[in-house]
Protein backbone atom coordinates (compact mmCIF):
# COMPACT_ATOMS: atom_id res chain seq x y z
CA UNK A 1 0.00 0.00 0.00
CA UNK A 2 1.27 3.48 -0.82
CA UNK A 3 2.77 5.36 2.09
CA UNK A 4 0.63 8.20 3.40
CA UNK A 5 3.51 10.52 4.05
CA UNK A 6 5.82 12.54 1.87
CA UNK A 7 9.13 14.02 2.96
CA UNK A 8 11.04 16.71 1.11
CA UNK A 9 14.34 18.29 2.03
CA UNK A 10 15.48 21.87 1.49
CA UNK A 11 18.81 23.59 2.09
CA UNK A 12 19.13 26.44 4.57
CA UNK A 13 21.29 29.32 3.38
CA UNK A 14 24.52 29.57 5.33
CA UNK A 15 23.95 26.34 7.25
CA UNK A 16 25.90 23.57 5.56
CA UNK A 17 24.95 20.78 7.95
CA UNK A 18 21.30 21.80 8.35
CA UNK A 19 18.14 21.15 6.35
CA UNK A 20 14.45 21.94 6.46
CA UNK A 21 12.56 18.68 6.19
CA UNK A 22 8.90 19.04 5.28
CA UNK A 23 6.42 16.34 6.29
CA UNK A 24 3.16 16.01 4.37
CA UNK A 25 0.46 13.53 5.38
CA UNK A 26 0.03 11.19 8.34
CA UNK A 27 2.85 9.73 10.46
CA UNK A 28 1.88 6.34 11.81
CA UNK A 29 2.88 2.69 12.12
CA UNK A 30 2.53 2.10 8.38
CA UNK A 31 5.29 4.53 7.43
CA UNK A 32 7.62 5.00 10.42
CA UNK A 33 10.17 2.68 8.82
CA UNK A 34 10.25 4.81 5.68
CA UNK A 35 10.52 8.04 7.69
CA UNK A 36 13.20 6.60 9.96
CA UNK A 37 15.22 5.53 6.94
CA UNK A 38 14.99 8.99 5.39
CA UNK A 39 15.99 10.86 8.53
CA UNK A 40 18.75 8.38 9.35
CA UNK A 41 20.13 8.90 5.84
CA UNK A 42 20.26 12.65 6.46
CA UNK A 43 22.14 12.06 9.70
CA UNK A 44 24.48 9.71 7.86
CA UNK A 45 25.19 12.43 5.31
CA UNK A 46 26.24 14.77 8.11
CA UNK A 47 22.98 16.73 8.10
CA UNK A 48 22.54 16.64 11.84
CA UNK A 49 20.63 19.89 12.31
CA UNK A 50 17.10 19.38 11.10
CA UNK A 51 14.18 21.77 11.15
CA UNK A 52 11.08 19.62 10.71
CA UNK A 53 8.22 21.55 9.14
CA UNK A 54 4.94 19.95 10.24
CA UNK A 55 2.64 22.48 8.61
CA UNK A 56 1.11 19.80 6.41
CA UNK A 57 1.49 16.92 8.85
CA UNK A 58 -2.13 16.17 9.65
CA UNK A 59 -1.76 13.28 12.10
CA UNK A 60 0.75 11.54 14.37
CA UNK A 61 0.00 8.41 16.37
CA UNK A 62 1.92 6.90 19.28
CA UNK A 63 4.34 5.07 17.01
CA UNK A 64 5.06 8.31 15.20
CA UNK A 65 5.61 10.13 18.48
CA UNK A 66 8.09 7.44 19.44
CA UNK A 67 10.21 8.05 16.35
CA UNK A 68 10.11 11.83 16.83
CA UNK A 69 11.59 11.33 20.29
CA UNK A 70 14.14 8.98 18.75
CA UNK A 71 15.14 11.56 16.11
CA UNK A 72 15.52 14.21 18.79
CA UNK A 73 17.82 11.97 20.80
CA UNK A 74 19.83 10.75 17.80
CA UNK A 75 20.41 14.28 16.52
CA UNK A 76 21.66 15.44 19.91
CA UNK A 77 23.97 12.42 20.19
CA UNK A 78 25.52 13.57 16.91
CA UNK A 79 25.94 17.13 18.12
CA UNK A 80 22.92 18.33 16.17
CA UNK A 81 19.26 19.00 16.77
CA UNK A 82 15.77 18.07 15.57
CA UNK A 83 13.59 21.18 15.80
CA UNK A 84 9.87 20.91 15.12
CA UNK A 85 7.82 23.81 13.74
CA UNK A 86 4.33 24.62 12.50
CA UNK A 87 2.56 21.92 14.51
CA UNK A 88 -1.20 21.84 14.05
CA UNK A 89 -3.30 22.14 17.18
CA UNK A 90 -4.42 18.50 17.25
CA UNK A 91 -0.93 17.05 16.87
CA UNK A 92 0.49 19.44 19.47
CA UNK A 93 -2.22 18.38 21.88
CA UNK A 94 -1.26 14.71 21.58
CA UNK A 95 2.43 15.56 22.12
CA UNK A 96 1.46 17.58 25.18
CA UNK A 97 -0.83 14.88 26.57
CA UNK A 98 1.98 12.31 26.69
CA UNK A 99 4.31 14.84 28.28
CA UNK A 100 6.66 15.01 25.30
CA UNK A 101 6.32 18.74 24.66
CA UNK A 102 9.13 19.46 27.09
CA UNK A 103 11.31 16.74 25.55
CA UNK A 104 11.08 18.03 21.99
CA UNK A 105 12.39 21.31 20.55
CA UNK A 106 9.15 22.92 19.34
CA UNK A 107 8.87 26.33 17.66
CA UNK A 108 5.89 28.20 16.28
CA UNK A 109 7.59 29.36 13.10
CA UNK A 110 10.33 28.00 10.85
CA UNK A 111 12.19 31.31 11.10
CA UNK A 112 12.41 30.93 14.88
CA UNK A 113 13.77 27.40 14.59
CA UNK A 114 16.36 28.45 12.01
CA UNK A 115 17.41 31.39 14.16
CA UNK A 116 17.94 28.97 17.05
CA UNK A 117 20.36 26.79 15.06
CA UNK A 118 23.87 27.14 16.41
Amino acid at each position, binding site marked *: *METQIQITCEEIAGKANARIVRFVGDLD*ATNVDYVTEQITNYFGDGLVKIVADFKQLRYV*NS*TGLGVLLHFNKSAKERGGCFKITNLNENVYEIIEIIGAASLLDIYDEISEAIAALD
Partner: protein
Amino acid sequence: MDLTFPYTISVRLPSDLEIIPSIRKFVSEVLQVSGFSAKFAFRSEIIVDAICNNAITHGSSGGVDGEVELSCVIHGDRLEVVVRDNGGSSADIERLKEAVRRTRLGLPLPDYDSGGMGLEIVKLLSETIDINVDENNVTSIHVVRRREDV
Protein backbone atom coordinates in the same frame (compact mmCIF):
# COMPACT_ATOMS: atom_id res chain seq x y z
CA MET B 1 -28.42 14.80 8.55
CA ASP B 2 -31.14 13.45 10.82
CA LEU B 3 -29.52 10.49 12.56
CA THR B 4 -31.08 8.37 15.27
CA PHE B 5 -28.67 7.50 18.09
CA PRO B 6 -27.26 5.13 19.05
CA TYR B 7 -26.05 3.31 15.99
CA THR B 8 -23.21 0.88 15.51
CA ILE B 9 -20.47 0.42 12.98
CA SER B 10 -18.88 -3.02 13.07
CA VAL B 11 -16.10 -4.29 10.92
CA ARG B 12 -13.85 -7.33 10.88
CA LEU B 13 -10.30 -6.39 9.98
CA PRO B 14 -7.49 -8.52 8.62
CA SER B 15 -4.51 -8.61 10.94
CA ASP B 16 -2.57 -6.06 8.92
CA LEU B 17 -1.46 -2.61 10.08
CA GLU B 18 -1.92 -1.22 6.56
CA ILE B 19 -5.70 -1.32 6.99
CA ILE B 20 -5.73 0.96 10.04
CA PRO B 21 -5.37 4.39 8.35
CA SER B 22 -8.47 3.79 6.22
CA ILE B 23 -10.50 2.53 9.17
CA ARG B 24 -9.54 5.30 11.60
CA LYS B 25 -10.28 8.00 8.99
CA PHE B 26 -13.63 6.38 8.22
CA VAL B 27 -14.60 6.49 11.91
CA SER B 28 -13.46 10.11 12.12
CA GLU B 29 -15.56 11.12 9.12
CA VAL B 30 -18.63 9.27 10.42
CA LEU B 31 -18.31 11.10 13.75
CA GLN B 32 -18.14 14.49 12.06
CA VAL B 33 -21.13 13.68 9.86
CA SER B 34 -22.91 12.71 13.10
CA GLY B 35 -22.36 16.16 14.57
CA PHE B 36 -19.23 15.57 16.64
CA SER B 37 -16.51 18.22 16.52
CA ALA B 38 -13.35 17.89 14.43
CA LYS B 39 -11.34 17.76 17.67
CA PHE B 40 -13.49 14.93 19.04
CA ALA B 41 -13.12 13.10 15.73
CA PHE B 42 -9.33 13.54 15.78
CA ARG B 43 -9.01 12.25 19.31
CA SER B 44 -11.26 9.31 18.44
CA GLU B 45 -9.05 8.60 15.44
CA ILE B 46 -6.09 8.35 17.81
CA ILE B 47 -8.05 5.96 20.05
CA VAL B 48 -9.17 3.69 17.20
CA ASP B 49 -5.64 3.69 15.78
CA ALA B 50 -4.02 2.77 19.10
CA ILE B 51 -6.30 -0.07 20.09
CA CYS B 52 -6.46 -1.58 16.59
CA ASN B 53 -2.68 -1.29 16.38
CA ASN B 54 -2.37 -3.02 19.74
CA ALA B 55 -4.74 -5.83 18.71
CA ILE B 56 -2.99 -6.43 15.40
CA THR B 57 0.55 -6.17 16.79
CA HIS B 58 0.07 -8.13 20.00
CA GLY B 59 -3.17 -10.03 19.53
CA SER B 60 -4.84 -11.95 16.69
CA SER B 61 -2.59 -14.95 17.25
CA GLY B 62 0.54 -12.94 16.92
CA GLY B 63 -0.63 -11.29 13.75
CA VAL B 64 -0.75 -14.41 11.59
CA ASP B 65 -4.03 -15.42 9.99
CA GLY B 66 -5.80 -13.50 12.68
CA GLU B 67 -8.74 -11.20 12.64
CA VAL B 68 -9.67 -8.18 14.66
CA GLU B 69 -13.22 -7.05 15.27
CA LEU B 70 -13.90 -3.33 15.71
CA SER B 71 -17.24 -1.95 16.88
CA CYS B 72 -18.02 1.72 17.32
CA VAL B 73 -21.27 2.54 19.07
CA ILE B 74 -22.12 6.16 18.40
CA HIS B 75 -24.41 7.73 20.98
CA GLY B 76 -25.56 11.32 20.92
CA ASP B 77 -23.27 12.18 23.82
CA ARG B 78 -20.44 9.65 23.56
CA LEU B 79 -18.53 7.12 21.53
CA GLU B 80 -17.94 3.55 22.62
CA VAL B 81 -15.17 1.63 20.92
CA VAL B 82 -14.70 -2.11 21.35
CA VAL B 83 -11.86 -4.05 19.77
CA ARG B 84 -11.61 -7.82 20.08
CA ASP B 85 -8.94 -10.19 18.91
CA ASN B 86 -8.34 -13.87 19.40
CA GLY B 87 -5.36 -13.52 21.66
CA GLY B 88 -1.63 -13.40 21.14
CA SER B 89 1.37 -15.14 22.64
CA SER B 90 1.46 -15.92 26.35
CA ALA B 91 3.75 -12.91 26.80
CA ASP B 92 1.19 -10.69 25.06
CA ILE B 93 -1.60 -12.04 27.26
CA GLU B 94 0.47 -11.40 30.40
CA ARG B 95 1.21 -7.91 29.14
CA LEU B 96 -2.48 -7.17 28.69
CA LYS B 97 -3.36 -8.67 32.07
CA GLU B 98 -0.81 -6.35 33.65
CA ALA B 99 -2.37 -3.48 31.73
CA VAL B 100 -5.79 -4.50 33.13
CA ARG B 101 -4.41 -4.52 36.66
CA ARG B 102 -2.72 -1.15 36.30
CA THR B 103 -5.73 0.42 34.61
CA ARG B 104 -8.01 -0.69 37.45
CA LEU B 105 -5.59 0.69 40.02
CA GLY B 106 -5.24 3.95 38.13
CA LEU B 107 -1.52 3.35 37.60
CA PRO B 108 0.34 4.40 34.47
CA LEU B 109 0.82 1.68 31.92
CA PRO B 110 4.39 0.43 31.58
CA ASP B 111 6.31 1.75 28.62
CA TYR B 112 7.00 -1.61 26.99
CA ASP B 113 7.12 -0.07 23.53
CA SER B 114 5.03 2.22 21.38
CA GLY B 115 2.07 -0.13 21.98
CA GLY B 116 2.28 0.64 25.67
CA MET B 117 2.38 4.35 24.91
CA GLY B 118 -0.62 3.92 22.60
CA LEU B 119 -2.76 2.46 25.38
CA GLU B 120 -1.57 5.18 27.74
CA ILE B 121 -2.73 7.80 25.25
CA VAL B 122 -6.09 6.02 24.97
CA LYS B 123 -6.40 6.15 28.73
CA LEU B 124 -5.67 9.87 28.76
CA LEU B 125 -8.14 10.60 25.96
CA SER B 126 -11.06 8.56 27.27
CA GLU B 127 -13.36 8.46 30.27
CA THR B 128 -13.03 4.71 30.74
CA ILE B 129 -10.86 1.95 29.35
CA ASP B 130 -11.59 -1.63 30.26
CA ILE B 131 -9.37 -4.48 29.15
CA ASN B 132 -10.55 -8.08 29.45
CA VAL B 133 -9.01 -11.43 28.67
CA ASP B 134 -11.42 -14.40 28.80
CA GLU B 135 -10.67 -18.05 29.47
CA ASN B 136 -10.06 -18.64 25.75
CA ASN B 137 -7.59 -15.74 25.63
CA VAL B 138 -9.99 -13.66 23.55
CA THR B 139 -9.01 -10.14 24.47
CA SER B 140 -11.20 -7.09 24.28
CA ILE B 141 -10.64 -3.43 24.96
CA HIS B 142 -13.68 -1.27 25.66
CA VAL B 143 -13.24 2.50 25.59
CA VAL B 144 -15.78 5.23 26.24
CA ARG B 145 -15.21 8.84 25.25
CA ARG B 146 -17.80 11.53 25.97
CA ARG B 147 -18.26 14.61 23.81
CA GLU B 148 -17.32 17.83 25.55
CA ASP B 149 -19.97 20.12 24.09
CA VAL B 150 -23.17 18.57 25.50
